């Protein structure tokens, strides 16, 4: 129960009254009694303060006083609502963007993995720099070699994916990508079950019972965390498997799957190709460091063992491919692709924050100049420099805290966007959440901004001779203030310029990609995934299925053609794997060179007609190209031009390189088609070899050419396919145009994010320039009045103000350009990459900024030329 100041004063007053009363009773006259009592008491204020100090510490008082300042600040800001809102929104954008990006950076680069002893968990992969790949998976014989000889790795875990048709949990049959792992995989990864058990060494081998583990995401989203799921039997591909457990939430790496099963569930994994063939690489490899082993030691040993393995099997590793091995911690593997882009984003967010701060500084500076007389009055009344600063700090703190609060509210949706965006570089971004540390970051940014802003305005000079006359009440602008305003405006323009150039670069790239000629007819072709049926039927059955489907769908009204193949352009991630080395008749690789690698695409007759790829020479495949007929092939124009430069490709022969282990016999080239790159979104000349799938390969994709709206055909197509085979999954129907749009989403997002940053920056900068000029014009009313009075044309005044705006813009662009060059240099030193923007983005950004700056100075310029001469001259 602390007494408040009123209580203390009451006590003093009552004491005084008693003392006076006593004196009067003793016979003194009231007036002298009062004086004597007061004299005896001493300083009332001192007594009160001393009593007050017993109860309240200095800190308490300081904080209380500060709150009072904040209250005053709040009230004075409410009077200038427009300014306050501008400042708060500007800061919110700056702080929100930073908080969101920081959350993602934190979750990707800084947060530890859930995996036990994650720093001893290694990701191992092969490289084949000779054929331009940094990321090659392993085959089982290779893993066997490493496993048997490497001592510094206590255990290896392997992971591969296989597409299974899943029939379970009372849902439609559908194709899922399942992980297939060995018994030590989860032990190596250091993961625990959330429910039941994980796959362990008892599940290894061809005689184990088929079991599966569900991923946490699948279990929580699709199965609503049903605890009864353990023990259920599901239909997985050709056989049944028992669900034994649910995996704890963890990074979905190397692949996002719903189900992870043991080897016995996949006939392919038990087959001879998987077990015996050294070239059959489809397995990701992880290792756990043995106790006492170091990363460097393990890397050296793995490399040595790998090198001797390569040496021992010359038939499988051609010297030209330069097959090697690389080891990283899983943590680094997950973070490394995201590092550059995230740091770039963080830099962009920081630049926006700088722009926001400098703009806010401008606004505050302008405001404080207008209040200079108020501050001068307070200084004259005895307020110390510290007290004035405190007032300013309280105000800027109110603004910045409000900005930060709004920014953190913005951060939540922004994090969601940024996480989805960054997830393309690192799956860990999916874990990003707004959490406590971001609140701290926001608070830190707000306080930093507040302190900065409080020190921007100049205090009224305490030197009497130059102190502004409080009575004048007009706006005075000192050269120093003016210079500061201009510096801030220039900073904004410079930073905006950088962001705009970056955004321009990305937009230009995106534009080039989306308008590029793909070689396909994009609008009218519907692509449908028709994965191999659940029965596992291949060969004859698949042949029949597709013949029947082609015939019946082709008979539908509105269908111009039906074809089948294995790859939907851009959508199928394995398109890159379907690339083999071919030998060509009459082509001799130069010494040490390899046979050229070409895309390998089994297709049906009419594939080219349906997809709109022109046949340049020869003929299309026909229904007569049956398994028992002559082996034939069609090549793309790039193949024809490079390997048969004299234009004689048709009727020559090609064959699969013997190392692929597929088929040895030569095939006659019956046709040449235009290049169509179904792998890269940026089209490059592509060497492709097409086979009729009835001779080699198995189709899983259906293409329907529609006369009108392709999507209108989807129900009929699905019905026919289900009619032919009830268990058949029919998935992802989309036109090629939409497939491409979807595939370009990352680029679109990239361009969008940076354009958004650039747009925000531009907006803030325009407000900044307009503010500076408006302020400068307002402060120079008198000067303009005199100019007009001595015969200056209003036109000249307008030009003058516009010129000032243009000067700020020019200076900003120049500084930004120099800064950009410096940044590019630093980036090339740090990351070894520096892509210089083209002329167009630079020029575009410069023109945009200059135009915006001139536009922003238009209003102040008009105001300057409309100054009322008499009013202006009379004003002081």
């Amino acid at each position: 129960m602390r007494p408040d100041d009123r209580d203390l004063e009451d006590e003093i007053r009552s004491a005084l009254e008693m003392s006076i009363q006593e004196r009067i009773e003793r016979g003194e006259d009231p007036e002298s009694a009062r004086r004597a009592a007061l004299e005896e008491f001493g300083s009332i204020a001192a007594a009160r303060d001393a009593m007050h100090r017993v109860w309240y510490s200095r800190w308490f008082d300081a904080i209380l006083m500060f709150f009072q300042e904040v209250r005053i600040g709040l009230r004075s800001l409410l009077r200038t609502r427009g300014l306050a809102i501008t400042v708060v929104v500007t800061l919110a954008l700056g702080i929100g963007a930073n908080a969101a990006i920081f959350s993602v950076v934190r979750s990707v680069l800084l947060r530890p993995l859930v995996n036990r002893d994650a720093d001893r968990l290694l990701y191992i992969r092969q490289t084949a720099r000779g054929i331009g790949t940094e990321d090659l998976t392993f085959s089982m014989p290779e893993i066997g070699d490493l496993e048997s000889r490497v001592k510094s790795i206590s255990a290896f875990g392997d992971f591969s994916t296989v597409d299974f048709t899943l029939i379970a949990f009372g849902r439609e049959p559908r194709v899922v990508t399942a992980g297939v792992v060995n018994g030590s995989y989860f032990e190596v990864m250091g993961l625990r079950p959330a429910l039941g058990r994980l796959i362990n060494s008892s599940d290894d081998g061809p005689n184990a019972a088929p079991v599966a583990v569900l991923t946490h995401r699948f279990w929580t989203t699709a199965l609503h965390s049903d605890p009864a799921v353990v023990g259920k039997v599901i239909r997985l591909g050709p056989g049944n498997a028992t669900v034994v457990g649910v995996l704890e939430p963890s990074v979905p790496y190397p692949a996002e799957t719903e189900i992870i099963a043991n080897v016995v569930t996949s006939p392919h994994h038990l087959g001879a190709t998987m077990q015996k063939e050294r070239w059959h690489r489809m397995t990701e490899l992880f290792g756990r460091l043995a106790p006492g082993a170091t990363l460097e030691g393990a890397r050296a040993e793995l490399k040595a063992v790998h090198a001797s393995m390569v040496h021992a099997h010359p038939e499988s590793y051609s010297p030209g491919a330069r097959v090697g091995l690389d080891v990283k911690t899983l943590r680094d593997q997950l973070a490394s692709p995201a590092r550059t882009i995230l740091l770039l984003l963080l830099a962009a967010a920081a630049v926006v924050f700088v722009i926001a701060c400098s703009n806010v500084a401008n606004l505050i500076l302008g405001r404080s100049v207008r209040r200079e007389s108020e501050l001068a009055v307070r200084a004259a009344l005895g307020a110390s420099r510290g007290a004035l600063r405190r007032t300013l700090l309280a105000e800027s703190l109110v603004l910045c805290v409000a900005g930060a609060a709004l920014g953190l509210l913005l951060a939540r949706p922004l994090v969601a966007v940024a996480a989805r965006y960054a997830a393309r570089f690192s799956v860990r971004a999916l874990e990003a959440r707004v959490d406590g540390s971001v609140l701290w970051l926001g608070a830190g940014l707000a306080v930093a901004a507040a302190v900065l802003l409080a020190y921007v305005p100049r205090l009224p000079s305490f030197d009497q001779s130059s102190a502004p006359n409080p009575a004048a009440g007009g706006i005075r602008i000192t050269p120093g203030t003016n210079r500061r305003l201009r510096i801030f405006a220039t900073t904004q323009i410079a930073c905006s310029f950088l962001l705009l150039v970056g955004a321009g670069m990305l937009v230009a790239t995106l534009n080039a990609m989306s308008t590029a000629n793909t070689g396909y007819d994009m609008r009218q072709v519907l692509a449908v995934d028709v994965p191999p049926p659940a029965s596992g039927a291949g060969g004859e059955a698949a042949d029949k299925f597709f013949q029947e489907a082609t015939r019946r769908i082709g008979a539908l009204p509105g269908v111009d053609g039906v074809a089948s193949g294995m790859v939907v352009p851009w959508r199928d991630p394995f398109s890159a794997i379907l690339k083999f080395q071919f030998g060509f008749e009459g082509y001799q690789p130069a010494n040490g060179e390899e046979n050229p690698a070409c895309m390998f695409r089994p297709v049906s007759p009419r594939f080219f007609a349906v997809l709109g790829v022109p046949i340049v020479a020869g003929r299309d495949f026909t229904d007569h190209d049956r398994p028992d007929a002559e082996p034939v092939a069609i090549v793309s124009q790039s193949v024809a031009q490079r390997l048969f430069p004299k234009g004689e490709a048709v009727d020559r022969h090609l064959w699969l390189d013997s190392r692929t282990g597929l088929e040895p016999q030569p095939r006659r080239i019956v046709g040449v088609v235009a290049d169509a790159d179904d792998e890269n979104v940026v089209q490059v000349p592509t060497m492709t070899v097409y086979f009729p799938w009835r001779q080699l390969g198995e189709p899983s994709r259906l293409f329907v050419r529609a006369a009108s709206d392709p999507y209108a055909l989807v129900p009929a197509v699905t019905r026919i396919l289900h009619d032919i085979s009830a268990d058949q999954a029919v998935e992802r129907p989309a036109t090629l145009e939409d497939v491409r749009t979807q595939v370009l989403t990352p680029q679109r997002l990239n361009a969008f994010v940076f354009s958004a940053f650039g747009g925000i920056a531009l907006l803030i900068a325009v407000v900044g320039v307009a503010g500076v000029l408006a302020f400068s014009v307002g402060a120079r009313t008198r000067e303009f009045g005199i100019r007009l009075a001595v015969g200056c044309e209003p036109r000249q005044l307008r030009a003058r103000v516009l010129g000032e705006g243009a000067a700020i813009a020019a200076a900003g662009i120049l500084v930004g350009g120099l800064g950009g060059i410096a940044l590019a240099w630093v980036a090339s030193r740090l990351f070894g990459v520096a892509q210089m923007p083209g002329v167009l983005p630079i020029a575009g950004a410069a023109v945009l900024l200059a135009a915006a700056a001139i536009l922003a100075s238009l209003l102040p310029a008009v105001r300057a030329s409309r100054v009322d001469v008499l009013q202006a001259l009379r004003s002081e």
Partner: protein
Amino acid sequence: MTKTPDDPRLELLQGTLDMLVLRTLQWGPRHGHGIGQAIRRQSEELLRVETGSLYPALHRLVKRGWLKSEWGVSETNQRAKFYRLTPAGRAQLIREQDRWSQLVRAIGRIMNPAPVNEE
């Protein structure tokens, strides 16, 4: 209010004032003015307590829990804040009294040494 270690007077004075205040309240509650008058009267006008230190001292003692204060009406029908000893304050008074008599004895021995009987 700051204590400097090389100024023993201040501490002594302050300690003594607290003790005197506790002592005057031994027989019942009084208001601040009354406490000042009581000290003055009982010391036969030798001690005059500055009001500037009396009132802060009262509040300090309240804060320590040795006194309790409440508003009441004085004998002259004036509103005044009255202070009274708490049980803890009573215990503190006894401690202070002990300490004081020890201090007086010790200082007395130094200032008026008893005749020394050496050899």
